[in-house]
């Protein structure tokens, strides 16, 4: 699980050389991708075991350079600004809340990987296959089990009851991705979502700017005093995996009814000069080698049916059968109006 990497010690000067090489190298012919270097553009939450991409290089002879920046929103804005002269060949990490913006800007080239046959239809949000679903995670309300004597709430509407007054902390949807997903959860649940938030406000909900501030600053796990927080379905297994002192059972649980599904996609960036190698990488992302590495590396779930979840996940989390969802086009069209209304309700 933990090993120091010799690769990681590569000197910064070496990187500069690689960078230069990466810009100039091109596939020498349509059939040959061996010896190509691909650049994978992704966000700051991307993580994999070392062996995973090494397996890809061993299979195809294609080296992968990972270029990271900011969050999914930054990634999409950057790619829109550099459209036509993309920063990389493949993007990983655009999610369903930003998908439409990326599609509208024509960031991606169409590619239907054979691996898609193993992916349930519910994840395939783009019928034209400009992007390929790779993983998903649910944004759900987490609770600190010991702090709720009469049991956790079971539905979103419970949160406005006096029993749960001053117990919930959420993130600001204007500055936080889980915060926005939770706003979408309420919009998908209630016709009068504005009324729900007004009631939440009256019931003493706390708003943090980001997940770190909510989870570590105000939720009990980080030393705060609130037993309910907007986090992920995979937070309980992470609590076990990184527990200190070690525990077998997560101190937290998830309210299934509150879960909004976030799906992350990969796409070939329009303008790449390494199209074939890029296709190979997308194919590889849907193989069990890559998919099985996803849970413990990024704490999200693989999308292929044949992936095997590690026991830590299967023991501590059940994947919600019918999560809350909204159409990416509706999300993009509604975003500014919804967040503006939310700000008005919460701080007006």
């Amino acid at each position, binding site marked *: 699980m933990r090993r120091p990497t010799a690769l990681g010690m590569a000197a910064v000067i070496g990187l500069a050389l690689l960078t230069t090489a990466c*810009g100039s190298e091109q596939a020498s012919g349509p059939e040959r991708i061996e010896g190509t270097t691909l650049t994978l553009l992704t966000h*700051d939450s991307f993580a994999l075991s070392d062996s995973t991409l090494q397996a890809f290089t061993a299979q195809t002879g294609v080296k992968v350079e990972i270029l990271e920046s900011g969050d999914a929103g930054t990634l999409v804005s950057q790619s829109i600004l550099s459209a036509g002269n993309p920063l990389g060949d493949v993007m990983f990490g655009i999610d369903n809340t930003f998908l439409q913006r990326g599609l509208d800007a024509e960031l991606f080239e169409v590619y239907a990987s054979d691996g898609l046959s193993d992916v349930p239809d519910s994840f395939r949000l783009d019928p034209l296959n400009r992007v390929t679903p790779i993983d998903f995670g649910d944004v759900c309300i987490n609770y600190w089990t010991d702090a709720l004597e009469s049991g956790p709430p079971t539905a979103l509407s419970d949160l406005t009851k006096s029993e749960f007054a001053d117990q919930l902390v959420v993130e600001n949807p204007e500055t936080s991705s889980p915060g926005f997903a939770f706003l979408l959860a309420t919009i998908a649940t209630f016709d009068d979502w504005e009324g729900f938030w007004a009631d939440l406000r009256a019931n003493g909900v706390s708003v943090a700017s980001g997940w770190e501030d909510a989870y570590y600053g105000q939720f009990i796990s980080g030393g705060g005093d609130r037993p309910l927080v907007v986090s992920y379905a995979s937070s309980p297994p992470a609590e076990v995996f990184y527990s200190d002192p070690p525990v077998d059972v997560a101190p937290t649980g998830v309210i299934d009814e509150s879960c909004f599904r976030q799906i992350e996609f990969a796409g070939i960036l329009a303008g790449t000069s390494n199209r074939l190698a890029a296709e190979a990488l997308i194919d590889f992302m849907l193989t069990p080698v890559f998919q099985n590495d996803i849970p413990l590396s990024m704490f999200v779930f693989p999308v292929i049916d044949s992936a095997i979840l590690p026991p830590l996940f299967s023991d501590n989390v059940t994947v919600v059968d019918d999560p809350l969802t909204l159409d990416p086009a509706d999300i993009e069209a509604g975003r500014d109006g919804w967040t503006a209304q939310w700000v008005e309700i919460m701080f007006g």
Partner: protein
Amino acid sequence: MKTAVKLFAVLIPATFVVVFFVYPVINVLSTGLAGDGLGSLVDLFESSRERRVMWFTVWQAVASTALTLLVALPAAALVAGLSERRRRIARALVTVPFVLPTVVVAGAFEGVFQRFGLVSGTVRVHHTVWAILLAHVFFNYAVVVRTVGIHWAGLDGRLEEQARLLGAGRWRTFTEVTLPRLRPAIASAASIVFLFSFTSFGVILILGGPGRSTIETDIYRFAVTRGDLTTAASLAVVQIVAVLALISLTTRLERHRPVATRQPRQASLAVGRAWRWANVSLMLLLLGTPVAVLVERSLAVGEGYSLRHYGALVHRTRQLPVPALVAVRNSLVFAVVATALAVVVGGLASLVVVHGRRALSRVFDLGLTLPLGTSAVTIGFGILITLDEPPLDLRTSWMIIPIAHALIGVPFVVRTMVPVLRGIDNSLREVAAVLGAAPSRVRREIDLPIGSRGLVVGAGFAFAVSIGEFGATSFLPRHSDSITAPIALFRLLATPGQLLQGQAMALAVVLMVVVALAVVAIESVRGTADGGL
């Protein structure tokens, strides 16, 4: 100066700032405003929300600056009164807050608020503007102590002695004899604190609580969350114009009058014992409490304490592409390169600002300080869409990170150097010349030692700025194994679990130690270079 030297002194800083700042920023702003830029600017001023945001941005920055000066000026006096060795240590210690990521400091502050019951009730600090001001004082304390302190230590105390002999009271001596001579340095420090507070991001979002926005946080909101680059660019224009106006103002104050400066000595400050202790206690409470909270958290393991989290920094956790210590090493390499760039560019630019023609001096002062008051989004996106073609396809080169850091470090070098260079007493030079010293000798024995004093303090700043920089770094594309320590720390805190949290705290403590040692080392370079002054 010889013509060739003059030419280089002008060309090197000018090229640097034009290529890496002016041109990218103009490019991104014109791209953003291409559609209906003017209309969007008009809309901004017509929106009552945005007007409120602009007003809040300005007044919180003014209040933060005033408060920081109020708290840190006495400390600058105290530090000036110490022996050179102790002064160097004190200067290094106050730099520590600089490298602490906001999210970590915010966590520490909230811990303190909770302990002292300031979260709710009649005296509430949590999620108020007071929390913002407090954090800005915490982060900017070093700017005032270092910039003003170095100047104060160089003041000729005989003037004060004469004033006292002539019957002036302590307060009157300070306000009428000391303060006017410090004015250029105070203006210099104040402008940096103002710019930092003006463009503050994490502090506003996390400590200010929900619903509070500044121009800086709104640029992010529009550019990234909403994808509305036109409004973001309009806000960026407003930000830049406001910053230009401010810098022009302080430049005037800085120029006000040249003051006598001599070799540093222990400043003869008649500071009362009670006053001194009150200030030291405040310093310890303000700077020490969050730091103590961090150290405690980094050592807390299960039920007791151990160094286990520090040991874990050697290994790679799944959340990071490399072991955390490799990220520290990356940060050190970037900081060394960024400091070297900032010292060369900033050092030469200071000479132009002080000795150059008036118009040129103005332009240099404005142009080189501006990056500090410009949004990380503007700089990051600007570089991204501008330096994207050979011969300067630097978007994905590792060099772009130290270059961005140096852009922010240069203003520190310039702002510490300029008051020092301006302060060199012309009569000193004249006396030397009359006594028969050649111009080169005058430069070597008067300008150089005194100037180098400013340069090392500026270099220490540039180093600390680079080690702690988060905003611009996070907006630039980076190779996964050249991850910097602040980014690594942020990633450790992005997944639940006590082990990751402990490691993040240990990493923060390592960063503090590294920067304190590095600043001491940088400032010792000068100690040996000019004969251990």
